[in-house]
């Protein structure tokens, strides 16, 4: 029994150390990205990099975005967020009252407790009071996150959401370069071609390009 216990503890320790190492690796990667707005990585034997878009590419992105916006506007099956909210209201779901108002109230409570916690930290804080405030904040954040996710699900098919997802893909495609014979060139000639690549490449590119362009 004792041996099993000590083995479990050892595994937990190993997991902790590995988590810490993974985190340190990620922090170092972010440091690399922050230094010059570029990050290199390997995928399936190819060397890639994601970088900040230049002025010309931003113009290209703007053109792609406007074209997509026009297409979405013409699509009768895709509603603007405000119209989708009206449609939900007619079906008995009032997003403004049931979600937005609640989020607003919870945020007001969050600000109030944050102020009290900040004030406690600025005075002589006792651990109990700090922990009490912290737990209240965690609960409030949890509720806010839940409502935000619910709102996101309800409005998933809005025009705005379609456009936002599309723009994120377009930024990823435009910011990805591949190294060929020691030269960096744009990895794919079109967004469609980029989207046909394996998930691991799309996900990594998406993550780094969002870090750079959206935060």
């Amino acid at each position, binding site marked *: 029994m004792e041996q099993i216990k000590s083995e479990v503890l050892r595994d937990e320790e190993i997991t902790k150390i590995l988590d810490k190492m993974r985190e340190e690796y990620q922090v170092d990667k972010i440091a690399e990205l922050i230094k010059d707005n570029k990050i290199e990585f390997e995928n399936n034997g190819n060397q890639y990099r994601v970088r900040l878009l230049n002025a010309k590419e931003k113009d290209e992105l703007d053109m792609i975005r406007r074209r997509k916006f026009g297409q979405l506007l013409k699509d009768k099956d895709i509603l603007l967020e405000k119209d989708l909210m009206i449609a939900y209201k007619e079906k008995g779901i009032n997003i403004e009252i049931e979600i937005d108002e609640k989020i607003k109230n919870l945020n007001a409570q969050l600000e109030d407790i944050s102020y009290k916690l900040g004030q406690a930290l600025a005075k002589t804080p006792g651990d109990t009071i700090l922990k009490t405030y*912290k737990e209240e904040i965690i609960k409030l954040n949890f509720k806010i996150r839940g409502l935000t996710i619910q709102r996101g699900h309800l409005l998933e098919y809005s025009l705005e959401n379609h456009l936002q997802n599309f723009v994120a893909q377009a930024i990823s495609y435009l910011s990805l370069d591949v190294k060929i014979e020691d030269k960096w060139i744009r990895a794919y000639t079109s967004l469609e071609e980029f989207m046909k690549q394996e998930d691991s490449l799309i996900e990594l590119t998406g993550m780094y390009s969002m870090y750079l362009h959206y935060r």
Partner: protein
Amino acid sequence: MLDTYLRKLAKRTEMLNLFAAAKDMSCFRLFNNDKELSKLQDSFLSYLYFYDSVVKDIASKRVSEKVLEDEIYENAYAYYRNKEKDEIDNTPKNKKQTIQGVFSRDNKINFPKEVK
């Protein structure tokens, strides 16, 4: 997760030292680019400013060092400090300069008087 990584990086002593040096001497640089900061760099700078000021606040006993034990404590302290600053900025004495009208009834420009 990104926020946590940015915070961890900004809290590193070598980063805070580099930040302090870069503020005073142009030969020290945080980034390779001089202009057009990315959103990521912008956020990172905000964290550096924040941690730099928190370390000073801790040193001058304005806040407990416990503040750096938890992201929730850090956020709460940032909120509290901003609120306090807003209140000080909006006290009548500090507001006087901005409240005084720029134009008088006869359309002459009245430059705001310095508040002593």
